[in-house]
């Protein structure tokens, strides 16, 4: 056992070294100094409080997306459409904010509604990929990718069309929302403790879902052997749809955070690639919810 673990560890170390080697080569090929680059990465991440906060800004959507993907991976699905689900979450959040722009409702309530709206938006987009998969036999990789491109186009259409800034539409996005629509930030940093709490709730929720519940066990059975799970009496296609919906809702929450806590408006690259990055993270942690948070 221990020997095996050591073997695994040295394997992982070798992989890490290889990764550094490749990155260094690429940097050298464009005449950049690798050591300088690594130094900057480290400084940029942990150099001072403000920079560390920036890391957390990225950590929040990444954690939410990864949590969602752990659910779809457990059920054996490659939810590559997660990127589009983040985008739709952001669009839906923006839509809710615009809807209540001149209302008298308390801002806190509007923020909550906007986040719920974002989760619904992500879930609906995921449901599309799910329906294509379950009822149309379209592999979720292709369905998801197609929907990602459509989601990006939809963002640009909205920014340059119906939701454009008065006067000139531009790549800088829609008109920023008033300050009271923002999740409360930490002093003058860009990170909101509430966003961090929501992300942590997301990952803890997924951890317990997968580790301790009947739902999680059934989901795993579906992921490992769809046919046998069906014969064992598990309503398989429903479970596939549930996992799409859960992942979509979490990805939508990530999109909502991007709007409500970071950019305060809809911008063309609102998802910042966190969907794809989350896929990599979820693959790397080997589908084990426990390891998603570094400790």
């Amino acid at each position, binding site marked *: 056992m221990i020997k095996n673990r050591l073997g695994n560890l040295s394997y992982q170390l070798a992989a890490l070294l290889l990764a550094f080697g490749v990155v260094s080569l690429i940097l050298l090929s464009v005449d950049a100094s690798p050591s300088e680059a690594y130094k900057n990465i480290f400084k940029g991440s942990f150099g001072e409080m403000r920079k560390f906060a920036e890391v957390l800004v990225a950590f929040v959507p990444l954690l939410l997306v990864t949590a969602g993907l752990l659910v779809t991976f457990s059920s054996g699905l490659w939810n590559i459409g997660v990127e589009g689900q983040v985008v739709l979450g952001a669009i839906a959040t923006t839509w809710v904010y615009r809807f209540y722009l001149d209302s008298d409702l308390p801002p806190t309530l509007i923020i909550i509604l906007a986040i719920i709206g974002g989760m619904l938006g992500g879930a609906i987009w995921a449901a599309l990929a799910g329906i294509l998969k379950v009822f149309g036999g379209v592999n979720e990789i292709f369905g998801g990718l197609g929907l990602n491109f459509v989601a990006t186009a939809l963002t640009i259409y909205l920014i340059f069309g119906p939701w454009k800034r008065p006067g000139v539409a531009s790549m800088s996005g829609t008109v920023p929302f008033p300050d009271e629509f923002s999740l409360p930030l930490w002093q003058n940093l860009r990170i909101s403790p509430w966003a961090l709490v929501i992300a942590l709730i997301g990952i803890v929720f997924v951890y317990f879902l997968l580790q301790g519940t009947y739902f999680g066990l059934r989901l795993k059975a579906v992921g490992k052997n769809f046919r046998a*799970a069906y014969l064992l009496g598990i309503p398989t296609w429903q479970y596939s749809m549930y996992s799409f919906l859960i992942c979509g809702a979490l990805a939508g929450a990530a999109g909502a955070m991007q709007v409500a806590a970071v950019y305060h408006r809809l911008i063309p690259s609102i998802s910042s690639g966190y969907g794809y990055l989350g896929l990599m993270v979820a693959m790397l942690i080997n589908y084990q919810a426990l390891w998603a948070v570094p400790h």
Partner: protein
Amino acid sequence: MNVELKNINKHFGAVHANKGINLNIPTGTIQGILGENGAGKSTLMKILSGFIQPDPGSEIILDGKPVVIHSPADAIKYGIGMLHQDPLDFPPMKLLDNFLLGLSGGLFPNRKETAQDFNLLAREYGFSFDPESYVDSLTVGERQQLEIMRLLFLGARVFILDEPTTGISAGQKEKLFATLKKFPEQAMTVIFVSHKLEDVENLCDRVAVLRGGGLVGETKPPYVTSNLVEMMFGKAITLGARQPAEAGEVTISMKNVSLEDVRMKIKNVSLDIHAGEVIGLAGMEGSGQDLFIRACAGLMRTVGGRIHLQGQDLTGKSYHTFKHAGVNFLPAARLEEGLVLGLSLTDHFVLAEEPKGLFIDRAAGQKLAEDRIQSFNIRGKPDSTVESLSGGNQQRAELALLQTPLSLILLEHPTRGLDIESVIYIWSKLKGRCKTDGAAIVFISSDLEEVLQYSDRVLVFFNGMVSAPLDAGKTTVEELGQLIGGKGWADKGEAHD
């Protein structure tokens, strides 16, 4: 060709799979290799056919010359051809392409010439094939014949057949045996690997018995079955007498049921199955019995007629509705359809139970698993993954997953590939469920003896036709074999209604 195996040893890690086996097989004999599962037969044959290499010091001597066989392709160069249990052919290809594949020659094969060779060879051995038809339109038995032809064409002088009578009809078995019996005249050697005593006794000139990786004895005809059994298992085993059931209420009732898939149609079947009864389905693979059993499970929708389960109309309802009504289906492909690879025994037992609340009670799951493992005599631990179990133990685990209460058990090849001890155990458990739960059993088997031994009534399938139920106690293997092959239907009739 004379095949001599000298001091064959093979270790897989700590497992000593072949223990110094010495066996001489003279030219022109049909050599039987008998043994239960795990006796080392497959390992020995894989060594001879080049799939795996024996430990150093082992020797294979062909016609007096020591050889080292590196691969199956290498083996065929030496004249050793192997017929695998699942034919290693290409179902979506045309027969001709399947035949051509692997033959040496120029870049562009001459299809016309090869088709001529193909037809010539088929005629010589009395097979009838259309080279332009597709492999997946053939039965398993025909695919075996196709493989035999291919090996003959490649110049095989030694034929290894691995459990070839599994999954083929009685008629095809006869034909296979007739073909094989011609081989010794042409100085060819046949090695027939099986755990079926009857087949070995009927076909082989001599028999070697393996047990626990070692050779325990060799005999020649006349064979004494009880001696062979004792050599195989190290003790005597008997099947016991048939136990007819006392039929109770009607469990499942079919009225004018019609079924249809891409290949086949079954029309207007009417049948009542009673509680406690065992119905055996016999027929060549793909004669319609698979459609029938899937319709009983709700896995296949009927295109006509009605199905009632204990008085409740379930026509057109889903598999899960059937399952809630107490119908359980155990498919033939255990690892593909029956069990979930990567999940433990405990996981399986927990999954098969109705969820109690949201969270899984781990301690209760562990307890449940320990109980089931004990009462079903499974060699494994609660946290063993199902793929780490042997075939027999996987089958027992599947039985342990049967729900309670139970009204109908549907089984596809419940004992395929299992040794006789496991077979007896599994049937005793199944019959037990009939008694305790009043469940009925419907099962498919290609083993006619098994069908007659354990059924009360038998349905024979031929090309979508379904026979009237036969009384298993009054039917012989020969009669059943005839019906399966499509003979004698006039007087048995497709009698329904």
